[in-house]
């Protein structure tokens, strides 16, 4: 049998996926770019309108704020979870890891609706608090930024935990032992010896959560109830409600550029290749 050239077999394996990506993803995205510059008339009109619109500005500010707070929340909670899983020998470790990954098996839609059941005016949380006599009137736990943040942090948490977990499980316990034998207290050993070694994982997790949060749609739309307009929902409005394809496309371009900028800037601090490609 004739041997197939290695290069040929490589391309044969890659080509189907590449074709699909080009035809159904890259070309349509370019189409969006085109619309942004041509509808309703050729020029930078959409971008001028965008820059002048206060609503757009507000939406971008909300988007970045929600993404930033979600990132910080996920990092704090995720760090504790990852630290506990990787630093305490326990037979439960495999179960704990499974519990971190488990949410991936449940649709984001279902997880977000579950939060509505929990956080609504007569949701479980409010009902329980009222019955316990701790509050008299229901708290506003959703259809505001608080609700969006609670659900976003929940949805994004695994993306923060997994890179940190991978990183921490690679850190041997002897560093902290060494630090303590050299005279450092538990806290000092953690702060000066352990924590610096976990920074790559923390930065990876932060980047993943932040970038994913920037363009997130389902959770903010459901929990925000139209009151927390993040940029992806704003785009949907422009296109679905106002049939304003030009402005919608221009906003998409802006979001894409903003995300790319975040990646570019973080590339100076994080090893992107390791973060996005070689995560195990």
């Amino acid at each position, binding site marked *: 049998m004739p041997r197939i050239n290695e290069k040929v077999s490589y391309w044969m394996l890659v080509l189907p996926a590449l074709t699909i990506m080009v035809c159904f993803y890259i070309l349509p995205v370019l189409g969006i770019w085109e619309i942004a510059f041509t509808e309703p008339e050729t020029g930078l009109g959409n971008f001028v309108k965008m820059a002048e619109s206060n609503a757009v500005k507000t939406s971008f500010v909300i988007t970045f704020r929600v993404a930033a707070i979600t990132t910080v929340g996920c990092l704090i909670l995720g760090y504790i979870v990852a630290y506990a899983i990787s630093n305490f020998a326990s037979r439960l470790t495999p179960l704990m890891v499974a519990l971190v990954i488990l949410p991936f098996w449940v649709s984001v839609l279902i997880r977000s609706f579950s939060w509505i059941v929990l956080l609504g005016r007569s949701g479980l949380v409010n009902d329980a608090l009222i019955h316990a006599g701790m509050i008299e009137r229901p708290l506003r736990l959703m259809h505001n930024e608080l609700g969006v943040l609670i659900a976003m942090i929940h949805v994004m948490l695994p993306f923060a935990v997994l890179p940190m977990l991978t990183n921490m499980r690679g850190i041997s316990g002897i*560093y902290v032992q060494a630090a303590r034998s050299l005279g*450092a207290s538990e806290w000092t050993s953690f702060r000066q010896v352990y924590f610096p070694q976990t920074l790559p994982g923390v930065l990876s997790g932060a980047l993943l959560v932040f970038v994913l949060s920037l363009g997130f749609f389902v959770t903010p739309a459901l929990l925000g109830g139209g009151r927390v307009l993040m940029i992806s929902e704003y785009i949907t409005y422009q296109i679905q409600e106002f049939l304003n394809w030009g402005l919608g496309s221009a906003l998409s371009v802006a979001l894409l550029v903003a995300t790319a900028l975040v990646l570019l800037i973080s590339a100076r601090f994080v090893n992107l290749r390791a973060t996005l490609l070689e995560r195990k």
Partner: protein
Amino acid sequence: MNTPILSIKNAVKRYGTVNALDGVNLDVAEGEFLTLLGPSGSGKTTLLSAIAGFIGLDEGTLALRSNDITGKPPEHRDFGMVFQGYALFPTMTVRENVGFPLKIRKRPAAEIKKRVDEALEMVQMGAFADRMPSQLSGGQQQRIALARAMSFDPQILLLDEPLSALDKKLRADLQWELKDLHQKLGVTFIYVTHDQDEALSMSDRIIILKDGAIQQEGGPNTLYDRPRNRFVADFLGKSNFIEATVTGGSGPTFHCESQGTPFDLITDEPCEQGQAISLALRPERLRLGLPGAELVPATVKQVSYLGERCQVLVVREGGEEFLVSRPTWKTDITPTPGLQVSIGWDADAPVVLAPS
């Protein structure tokens, strides 16, 4: 002996139903090079971890110069420790690593710099102060780890198989350096290893552990020449074992008999007529001769050439095997598999073992 620097009384550590330490009593003398030697699972690392304070004892006490330190956390024990995996902090430079214990102790910057330089000079690594640990070889990293563990003048230096990750040549070099350093500094070393050669070549005193209990302790030559039981005789160097019966004589010379072969035995151990005894015989104390020249006729089974020595495995009639180690310069006999020979030994060569 003066007051021991470290005194361990009846140390017990249990993991489930297993006693990792089973009532260890040990006094460490000031300035001594003490080695804890044993196979894996013998409790030597557990004992070192207990001394360092990483694990607590279930029973027993630890005292440093008569002060109880049983419950003290590791950071207050003031013991330097060198790990098998070096454990240099990867996010710090060599200088920061070595200065770490001094910084923790809030010493002034000028003093830290001076003492780091001295410590690095001591291990001949002065030129590497600004490197990161990942840029150094294993041997260099272990030198830095040593400098770091010594930079704050610890009471005792604990070494946990520090050389086992290095290749053979480097290991030998570092053995000399460690010994040198120990003599120069006069600090007490407690050294854990499973490598008997390492233990024999460096230690003032060796503690042999098995199943969490001390089997025997003593200087390298005492342990090698006078192993107390079969485990020690087998673990520290190689031994041949002979089961024999005392047939007569009174100390120090006894007449013995093993599988129909009578021989004389010189020993300080009290023996009685008719007593069954176990003897250990070092391979280098066995002589190889032409058939009939020595006591026991045998056949060569295998020959292993080791450079300065060669080891010959011979089989006695009845299937009992003996390992003979002889210098390769001896050319009276060239042992080859199948050759008929005879083996013999001096009357003072066998060691009487305690019944196990």
